[in-house]
């Protein structure tokens, strides 16, 4: 889980729902509408990225392998992707 300006996956999902509710209400002006749409698209991309991150295929490591990788300075993700 990455924590960024968009927050966590769950906060991003909650915010998308809020954005859509606001858009559905029809009360937002043009500028706000465009800003909300932009924000919503950014959040959707973030969530899709989070889902993609856990869809590459199960990677199983033993703790000692994880520790040795960390000690040698190679991040597990980088190794897995390289493999």
């Amino acid at each position, binding site marked *: 889980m990455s924590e960024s300006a968009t927050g966590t*996956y769950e906060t991003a999902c909650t915010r998308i729902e809020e954005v859509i509710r606001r*858009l559905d209400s029809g009360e937002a002006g043009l500028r706000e509408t465009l800003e909300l749409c932009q924000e919503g698209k950014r959040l*959707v991309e973030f969530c899709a990225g989070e*889902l993609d991150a*856990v869809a590459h*295929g199960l990677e199983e*490591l033993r*703790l000692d392998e*994880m520790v040795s990788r960390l000690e040698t300075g190679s991040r597990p993700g980088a190794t897995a992707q390289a493999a």
Partner: protein
Amino acid sequence: MAAPSPHPDGIPGSRLSGPWPVGEYASALRDRLRGFTRVQVFGELFGLKVGRAKVWFELRDRWGALPCSMWRKDWDALGLHTLGDGAVVVAAGGCDFYPGSRASSPSFSFAVSKLRVAGEGDLLAQVERLRRALADEGLFEPQKRLARPSLPRTIGVVSGEGGKARDDVLAGLRRRGWAGRIVWAFAPVQDRRAAPAITRALQDLAACEEVEVIVVARGGGSLADLFAFCDETLCRTVALLRVPVISSVGHHTDRTLIDDVAAVACSTPTHAAEAAVPVDCAAARAQLRGLAARLERRSRLAIVERARVLARLARAPADHVERHRTRLHQHARELRATARRRLETAGRHTSTTALVLERKARAASGAEQVQHARNLERLALALAAHEPQRALERGYALVEDPSGEPVTSAAAAREHAELTLRLHDGRVSVRPRP
């Protein structure tokens, strides 16, 4: 090697046999003790000491005590390392005696071959005491206050290496459609080595920054089997970890202390895996596609609707002019029609008037003509009477200056050097004298 001591004489006056070499007597004593009937005894366990090959403890009750020993491998197999002083156990075995030697001390013990906790009630009482202590220290809360990610990328799992729990965890994660990274920390989950090993595994997993949540999974068993998960050190470690721990130890009817201190306690390893990934990834993907579509549709609608309004507003002035143009044309047509109607009416009226006048003129034309002739004649006579030529014929002359203008005064006549006298039959030039 020291030479054997000579056989000493006995005590004078004593009727007891001997003296015998002590080692010989000790061996005989051992043989005699081992010949005692093997029995089961029960009592409270105290002073547990774990050695490399054997463990030692005492069984006590209010009437006496018995030193006990047990082979280490038999003790480990019981998984009862968490037994504390006062636990009531039943021990099966028989008397034994180590005869010792010149270099080692003899010892008597009740050699235990089998042992069981006298009642789970005792174990439960121990667990309850520890549970109350941990609760009083507020150690049930810290884990529950930790934020649990709904979509962790890396999950740590502590379980037995060959246990079914491992497969159940994988099944739970597959059910969620999750395919991230699992870090397995295999540890014994039953014997006396379990609690320290599990504690160390949890600490190591929590030390890995990538690990976002940890599952501790173990299948069912007796309370004694699960006792490692009531270990005080283990529970205190879990309570203070920075990473949320999801426990699944035993069946749903079992309640170990790790369940109390963990962030979440689940009844099965499968449920623990599902709790570690609360989001159903497949459903989340579908939901996200729906949200993206709604967002796209709403975005497009917002623009199209506004464009439509703008287009309507842009057309408004032209529509307004067109409406006025149409109205103007209508007015013009009405004006032309009205004018035509008025002209026709006026024409008809004029024709009627002309007709009437013509009729009247025709009726009055005879008398009027005679009167007009008379008037004309009278006027002609009046005009003729004022004709200047008639005055000239009667002897008058008209004085004109050189430009032909009449001179009407003597003063005016003196201003000119030459004048013309106009008579009825011609002109004569004259020079006035000063």
